[in-house]
Every structure is written in C-alpha cells, then in structure tokens.
C-alpha cells in the first residue's frame, strides 16, 4: 500500500527515539525548567520504608504529586497523612515508572499551629531522653580566651558579638565559623559548624543568630542541631533570636543567652578592666610590704649604731648582722600582719560592694522581680500582687498577674 510505504520511508529518515531517550529529554526539560522549588500541600500515602527512605504524595483539592525523601534528610517532626507541609526540593523524573516526582530536601509544617505541635513533640521527646537535664550541663571555664562563634557572616548577630567582646575583653580570640542559619540545609550546616568548632581547642562555643519569624529560627528547632549540641564536648551557649524566642537549641545548650550580645557578655564575665584592677590591688600590696620592710630595717640600723660602747666598725657590723638575723622573724610577722590587714580591707570592701549590688546577677542572665517600687523578696508571695515588673539586664517588662 502506498501510505504504508510513505510512513516506512519517513521513519527511516527521522530516527525514532527510544523510551529512555525520550524520558531523558523530558527529565532534562523538567529539571532545568523547575530546578529548586518550594511547594505547599497536604501529605497523603506516607510510607517510611525500612531502608530509611520516605515516600508520600503531596496534594490539594485538584492535584497530587509524588514525593520522595531520601534517608539522609532529617526531619524534626512526625510526617503523617493529612498534615499540611511546606517542602523544598527539586522536580525530577523516575524513569522506571515514567513518573515525575519531587526529590525532597526539607519539610516543615505549614501552619503556625503545626509548627508549634512539631516543636512541642520534639521538645517532649528530647526532654524524655534527658537532653535538657541540668546535671549534664557543662560549666563555663573561669578564664575564657578562645571563643568559637557559629552564626551568619552577614547578620547583625556577628557584629554584635564581635563588638561586645572587643569592648570588654580584646585579649580573646574569636574562631568564627560562617554558618547558614536559615533555609535549606541550614540545620545540617549548624550541626556541622558545632562539630567543627568542637574539635578546635576552644574554651566555649556560641551558636546563634538574630531575630526572625518562627520559620526563620526553625533550624534551631531541628533534631540534628539538638544532637550536635548534646554530643559536643565543649560548653555551648545558644543565642537565638530575641529574649522571647525559645528554641530547642536553647534547652539543650549548656547556657542560653537572651541575645547574641548577651552571649558575648557572658563569655567576657572577666573583663580587661577586671585584670587592670587585679594588677592595681597586687601592686599596692607589694608596695606596702616593701615599705614596711625598708622602714623596719632602717630603724634597726639606726638603733644598732646608736648603741654606746661600739666603737669599732667591724664590731658594729657583726652586731648589726646578728640583730638583723634575730629580728627578721618578728619583723616579718609584723609586716605580714599589716599587709594582710590592708589587703583584706580592700578585698572585703570590694566584695561587699559587689555582693550588695542587686543587679550583679543580671549580667549572668538572671532576672529580678519588682512591684514597681522595690524588689520582691523571698518572704513576699506573688499572690499579693496584680502586676509585677521583671527586670533584666537590658530591659524591664511589666507583667499582669491573673488573680
């Protein structure tokens, strides 16, 4: 037949692609046109395979798309059918089934309510595992010279931390690990930064970032970050967001600072000025001790030479030597008493001044309660107040009490 012959000829001149060739073309079009995408929808048909890979569909009222999340990708909450999520990933094709799907990088609960549930679920899980236990928290060393910092290289946080440390204790060395603090891969990068800093000979590590929405701070609510903090050998201070933001990282960290600036103040609790003061005190003590000895020696010499009957110089010297020897012990006891007296006087005055400053603990992150006129003492019950003030280092807030 004529038509058959023409068709045969046309297929002979234009080669017909194989299924694989066509699939590869479709795949390269999809992958190059879409690249990295974000999409929101409801999870259905969720399956966690024993291999660790997770498969599900993301759907809305009209459409559905297959999703796969490979084993290595961490999720901080329980993915389950019906949950609204926002995910990032790339569109790709699964050739054996000719199916397009999303290769998922990150999943987050989509609604604020869902985020809160995920946060609470992880918090409870880690609490039960003992991650927040007070007795496993590491104490900061007294002498902090090497400070690791993991935060974004571009935010205000890094500037605040550096300028605070520079002002208070420029003897320190900062080991800065620029870190991705939000978005895809941020939790993994934070965990990696913690591990890297933990391997350096540091005294303390600060992890943090400036304020932002709950989604911006989300990486610090991921289990992978909690594990990295939990497994670190060095003390870690978390400083995420503002005073009112509490992340999982804050609970696991050895110390929580309200802000990045506060974290820098904590690690410089001994300032350059404290060192200056210390040297002044020691120099004064040395001067007193020296003056006393010089004075005593001069008196002894004068007294010896004034003695009658000692005419010959050698005799005088021999007796002087004898007297110096005999008097050394009693003289030194006297000097010691005077020096101790001066030193204790100074130190106790300083200690009294420091101890009576009710705001001193604020530097360490503690807060004071006030009724607006005076601090509330331990003897007073909060039941008698309708409103109180919480006084912190850099702010005072008024709280109304329901009673």
């Amino acid at each position: 037949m004529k038509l058959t012959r023409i068709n045969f000829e046309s297929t002979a001149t234009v080669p017909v692609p194989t299924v694989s060739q066509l699939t590869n073309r479709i795949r390269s079009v999809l992958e190059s046109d879409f690249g990295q995408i974000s999409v929101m929808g409801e999870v259905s048909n969720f399956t966690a395979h024993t291999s660790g890979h997770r498969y599900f569909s993301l759907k809305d009222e009209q459409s559905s798309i297959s999703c796969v999340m490979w084993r290595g990708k961490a999720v901080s909450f329980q993915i389950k059918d019906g949950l609204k999520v926002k995910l990032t990933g790339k569109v790709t094709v699964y050739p054996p089934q000719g199916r397009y799907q999303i290769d998922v990088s990150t999943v987050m609960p989509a609604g604020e309510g869902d985020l809160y549930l995920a946060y609470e679920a992880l918090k409870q899980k880690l609490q039960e595992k003992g991650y927040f236990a007070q007795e496993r928290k590491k104490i900061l060393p007294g002498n902090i010279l090497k400070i690791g910092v993991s935060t974004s290289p571009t935010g205000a946080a890094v500037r605040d931390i550096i300028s605070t440390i520079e002002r208070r204790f420029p003897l320190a060395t900062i080991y800065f690990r620029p870190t991705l603090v939000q978005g895809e891969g941020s939790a993994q990068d934070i965990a990696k930064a913690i591990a890297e800093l933990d391997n350096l000979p540091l005294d303390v590590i600060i992890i943090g970032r400036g304020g932002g929405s709950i989604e911006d701070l989300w990486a610090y609510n991921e289990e992978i970050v909690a594990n990295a903090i939990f497994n670190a050998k060095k003390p870690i201070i978390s400083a995420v967001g503002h005073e009112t933001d509490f992340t999982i990282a804050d609970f696991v960290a050895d110390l929580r600072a309200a802000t990045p600036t506060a974290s820098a103040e904590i690690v410089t609790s001994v300032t350059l000025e404290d060192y200056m003061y210390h040297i002044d005190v020691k120099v004064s003590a040395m001067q007193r001790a020296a003056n006393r000895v010089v004075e005593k020696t001069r008196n002894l010499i004068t007294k010896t030479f004034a003695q009658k009957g000692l005419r010959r110089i050698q005799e005088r010297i021999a007796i002087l030597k004898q007297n110096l020897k005999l008097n050394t012990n009693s003289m030194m006891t006297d000097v010691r008493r005077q020096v101790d007296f001066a030193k204790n006087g100074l130190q106790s005055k300083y200690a009294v001044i420091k101890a009576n400053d009710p705001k001193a603990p604020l530097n360490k992150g503690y807060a004071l309660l006030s009724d607006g006129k005076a601090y509330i003492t331990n003897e007073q019950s909060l039941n008698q107040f309708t409103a109180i003030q919480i006084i912190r280092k850099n702010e005072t807030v008024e709280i109304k009490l329901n009673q």
Partner: protein
Amino acid sequence: MKFEDKIKRIDAISEILDEGNVSLDEMTKLYEEGLSLASDCRKYLEKAELKIIDITNKFAETEDEN
C-alpha cells in the same frame, strides 16, 4: 612569658612578700620583678586587640554538600 603566666607570677610575688620569709635582698629583687611585670601587663592590656580567625576554609576539603 605569656600574659597569664605573668599575672600568675605577680600573684605569687605578692603572696611571697605578704608572707615575708625572705631576706632584704630577695625582697628587693622580687619587688622590682613584680613592678616590672605589672607594668608589662598594663601595657599588654592597653595594646590588646581582638583576634578573629575565620575557620571557613579549614574544613573546605571535607565539604560534601549534595
């Protein structure tokens, strides 16, 4: 001698002088050493400059993202 060691030495000298079980000669030497260390330390503190070490590249070869 490192700064921290100098501070420790100043503390030690101050303590020895406080205890007073040294001869006049020794005391004079210690006193001079103490004052000189204190002066060194003050200068060191006045000149102190914060050091910042970027550790980005330290681990670059082990980067295996994606």
